């Protein structure tokens, strides 16, 4: 799957798992935080995305010490991290071009 087809919820979920493994509720809270409160994922959307990411082997289950109810943790795989880096590079390049174009228009 080409990494350029990432939707914003999926990108936020991957970013949430980039620094450490997280369980479902922690991912919901973190995606809200890193989007500045703009994106609030529902549980259905989250688990739909998690299942697809597991199928694509971008993330994997992580055996944390707290495996009680609703506490299954997930973490990025090497492939998921690589694809996230490609996506972030693409966004950075696009952002740079957009900034240059807008600066040219304003001047």
């Amino acid at each position, binding site marked *: *799957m080409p990494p*350029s*087809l*990432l*939707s*914003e919820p*999926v990108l936020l979920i991957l970013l949430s798992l980039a620094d450490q493994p997280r369980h*479902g*509720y922690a991912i*919901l809270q973190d995606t809200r935080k890193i989007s500045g409160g703009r994106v*609030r*994922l*529902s*549980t*259905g*959307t*989250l*688990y*739909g995305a998690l*299942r*697809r990411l597991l199928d*694509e082997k971008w993330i994997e289950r992580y055996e944390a010490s707290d495996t*009680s*109810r*609703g*506490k*299954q943790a997930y973490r990025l795989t090497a492939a998921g991290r690589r694809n996230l880096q490609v996506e972030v590079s693409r966004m950075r390049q*696009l952002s740079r071009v957009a900034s240059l174009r807008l600066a040219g228009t304003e001047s």
Partner: protein
Amino acid sequence: MLTIYRVLVALYPSSYRLEYEEEMLGVLEQSNAESHDKEWPARLALAGRETMGLLRGAFEEHFRALAGFYPVPVFPNRRTSMRSEFRFPKTTVTLMTIILVAIIVTIEKAKAISQSIPPSSTQVGPIRPEYVGVVPAFLIVLVGACVLGVVGWAILFALQRSGMHRLSSVHPDAGQTKSTTLGLK
């Protein structure tokens, strides 16, 4: 609210529930508990978001179980890329979700009725139609026509949103004319 969430999670396919139901209910409980100290508009927004998310998720997982793929691309990007292939408009997804829920509820109701009837070896006689008066019959036809009209309108609206009606006005040489005009030969 948790009872409603449980019912909505029960709409997912059994294979999906086996894997994720416990986790999802745990997260829903935590979200619900966190919302207790918030104002009612925030609680209402959360309930609406969770309900729509669960309905949509159940529809997508049933679709996947039946068709082998998701009704929308796996990772759609609606912000920074344009896709030329057909895309389900939101109205179609909503309509299909309503139909799916109606089918599931009907199946569950039928199961409950069949379980409530005790097994009997007595022969059941021929079922005769109940007499229906003119006014009730007219009302039934009227309601049926209204329902068909609404469904038809929804389908036409969905097709219009998808832009399919514009295909008939597309000429094969239209693109070439446009390119010539723009100096892109």
